[in-house]
């Protein structure tokens, strides 16, 4: 079974909020010193699922990522984990692009790869939390898509059975291949790369495709524009809630959370 996995490199989600900074002018994140970006968590689950399917049925796992030069690290990580090949879609015209353009570019890249039985993506990325690009890819490729998926059952050459998470439960769906599945973290625990893999990743040659390679008319404006990116100012130190009685303090706490629209 030939599987394509889309991976995205994101800022380390474990950055403590107190250390989170953005540049409002360029609308980009300023990562704290010594914190390097990582592979999106859900994508790691998708890759793990792909690797297990391959080990079970044979075939090939190819990872595709769109992003700046640094995104190559996410691809190397994927190879270290056991992916057979990787493609890096890297073009200034695309890197800053919106979700719709990203979907179009990745779809084009997957098409260019040729025969594909299954496309696996993370259900969403931990930076924009959009959870939509993979569905865009499916639409562009005309593939049936199911997301978020917590389990993949009896895979065959023609179909797989996917468990799709819905409110208070799940649906078991038989999906005709080729198809795209948005993988959720319930599915597995991603492996830690064996040293052989890490070394292979170090040597791996990862082809870079530009918008031109994908015959995309680059530079055309995306449909979704980021107008503003900011961090809510908040005191670094804790705000201790004072009150006459503990009970009152408890009630006041509830109000605070309400004000902050957290409950």
């Amino acid at each position, binding site marked *: 079974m030939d599987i394509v996995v889309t991976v995205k490199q994101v800022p380390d989600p474990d950055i*403590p909020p107190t250390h989170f900074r953005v540049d409002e002018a360029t609308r980009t994140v300023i990562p704290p010193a010594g914190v390097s970006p990582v592979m999106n968590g859900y994508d790691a689950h998708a890759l793990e699922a792909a690797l297990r399917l391959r080990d079970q049925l044979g075939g090939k796992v190819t990872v595709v990522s769109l992003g700046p030069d640094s995104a190559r690290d996410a691809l190397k990580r994927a190879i270290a984990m056991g992916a057979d090949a990787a493609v890096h879609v890297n073009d200034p015209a695309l890197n800053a692009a919106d979700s719709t353009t990203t979907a179009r570019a990745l779809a084009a890249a997957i098409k260019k790869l040729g025969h594909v039985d299954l496309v696996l993506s993370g259900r969403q990325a931990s930076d924009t939390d959009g959870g939509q690009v993979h569905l865009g890819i499916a639409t562009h490729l005309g593939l049936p898509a199911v997301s978020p998926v917590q389990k993949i059952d009896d895979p065959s050459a023609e179909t797989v059975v996917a468990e799709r998470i819905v409110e208070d439960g799940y649906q078991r769906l038989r999906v005709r291949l080729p198809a795209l599945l948005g993988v959720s973290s319930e599915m597995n625990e991603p492996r830690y790369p064996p040293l052989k893999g890490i070394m292979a990743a170090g040597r791996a040659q990862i082809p870079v495709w530009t918008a031109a390679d994908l015959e995309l008319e680059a530079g055309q404006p995306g449909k979704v524009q980021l107008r503003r990116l900011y961090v809510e100012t908040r005191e670094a130190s804790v705000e201790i809630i004072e009150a006459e009685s503990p009970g009152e303090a408890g009630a006041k706490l509830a109000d605070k959370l309400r004000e902050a629209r957290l409950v």
Partner: protein
Amino acid sequence: MPTRPIGWNVSEVAFGVMYVLVAVQALLLAYGGTRRYVMWRRGRPLSGPLDRVGERARHALAVTFLHRRLLRPGYLYSGLMHLFIFWGFVVLFIGTLIVLLEADIVRPYFGLSFYQGTFYVVYKLVINLFGLLFLVGLLMAVYRRYGQQLPRFRRSLSDDAIVLGLLLFLGLTGFLLQALRLAATHDSAAPIHWVSYPVALALGGVDPAVLTGAHAVTWWSHMLANTALLVYIPVSKLAHIFTGPANVFLRATDPKAALNTIANIEEQEHFGVAKLEDFSWKQLVNFDACMRCGRCLDFCPTFNTGKPLKPRQLIVEIGAYMNRQAGLLAGPAGPRIDEAGVRGSELTAADEPSLVQVPVIANLIGDVVSEDELWDCTTCRACMEQCPVQIEHVPLIVEMRRNLVLEQSKFPQELVTLFNNLERNANPYSFPASTRAEWAAAAGVQELAQVADPSSLEVIYWVGCMSSFDARGQRVATALAKIFAAAEVRFAILGREEGCSGDPARRAGNEYLFQLLAQANIERLNHYSSEKRIVASCPHCFNTLKNEYPQLGGNYEVIHHSQFIQELISSGRLKVAPGVLEGNGFAYHDPCYLGRYNEVYDAPRDVMQSVAGGFAEMPRCRDRGFCCGAGGARAFMEEKRGTRISHNRLNEAIDTRADGVAVACPFCVTMFEDGVRALNVEERFAVKDIAEIVAAALGSES
């Protein structure tokens, strides 16, 4: 002229048979010995030739003939027991050779005889003495194994019984032969056979014909038993007669606290140990050297909390597996040692792969040794410290962990988090490296990078992750900073330039990650003059920097804060008000990587002496101390099997009636702090690092 006719009452046929049996004995002895040797040869060759051969030989001789490692505090009984059996065996063997010499060489060729007169008298007196010691030792052994209800002897193997039985039978029949001959021949020199003489007297009244008959029967059974013993040696635990000293001779002589490094790891194709052939031949000898005394279990944290890992079982099972492949009916291959049911044990049969089901061809990891066993180990070194033949359990276990991690990437989920954190943040937690020195700013401690003139510094304080990020650990670091200030020690920390020493990664088998972390630290440390002394407040960092960084080109003078504080006190630089602690004071707990690994036992005790006016010594202390459960990266794993190691140790400390436990390791601190809360004694039982106790003692001064 006192002597005896050699071969009295022994027919020519008997003698003929005896010499034929020599062939059988030689054949099977050589076969068994060679089979074991052939197995060892399958191991990897050593990186270099054996070093310090002379020293090794001296040590091996001392251990073998003087019982250096058998006769130790706490092991007087078993030490003497073995001493008696050993020397009894040796002397009786020499005695037999002497008779052979007289009968088959001196007499036939030179027509002379020395086996008479004074020599004969002395010979008999001595032989009787050692014969007696031999029997006494054996009886002690029988009581030890079957009389005393030691947990480690809860189950024994047929092999154990066979060996004891054979030796006892030989000893007894030996004396019986003597007695029967004396009684039958009315030997005038009878009294010099002072052990068998009384028996001879008792037999005095019996019809000589009967005595002669009995003598013949006894002679045959004695000789057959002797043949059986010789043949049994190579296929039983008796092989330790040869493999024991061999293993002692081959022991690691390099800093005992350092794990071997995988050189140019990037080029390797295969990592650690997945099958017997992956061990070095030297390591394979370990498995044949064990004779199951069980001392490795006495202070073993996993055995004493009912976890699957039992060092003896690990060695015995791999040894049996190896011998089955060698085609030897090694004793242990029969029934298995099974310590299930020891106090606190919650083991089910499922926890232990049954050797009986292990075919000759099986997976070393999985069929012979379970992954649980391998991940249980805290690498506390208690087993290695106690093993009389110096089997090196911990390196063997780490080798197998290396294969699981670097090759199969199969390991507890918690370790994935640990490794990812170490990779991303150079600390075991998920804190950005940039926040490492935040505690220092608060405590007014300088980072080296900020020091104008580093050469003016006296020491570099290596803080370690625990004391950098953990609120509890930070209290220790701050206390230490206060002590430095009081003694006017000019120091600084690496702060944001410091990273995890790599100890947890290495002990967990991730040698690659260890080397990455170590190289990063060495680079920075070498950047600042490497002549500087480094004071570490974490025994794990201390051990790694001191004993393992040299493997990667980092040579520093590293001391633990307990040593440095002692130095400051004894040199008078640090004024402490002794006896500031009222109440029952503290019990002192030896951190494994400070004590057993680096033999720093006295410094912390001296410090306690001078600041607290004393401390309570726990029954299990110094080289026989008991682990807190954190070592070997266990601090970052869940303790799912058996009972809690930390609770076991904590209860021992509480039983000393002390008000708290003093430690010298941040991991011990957290393990015990969690423990006191879980045991609900936090109100009445404190956990403190000695640095905190010293800092408190300063309080009255400053």
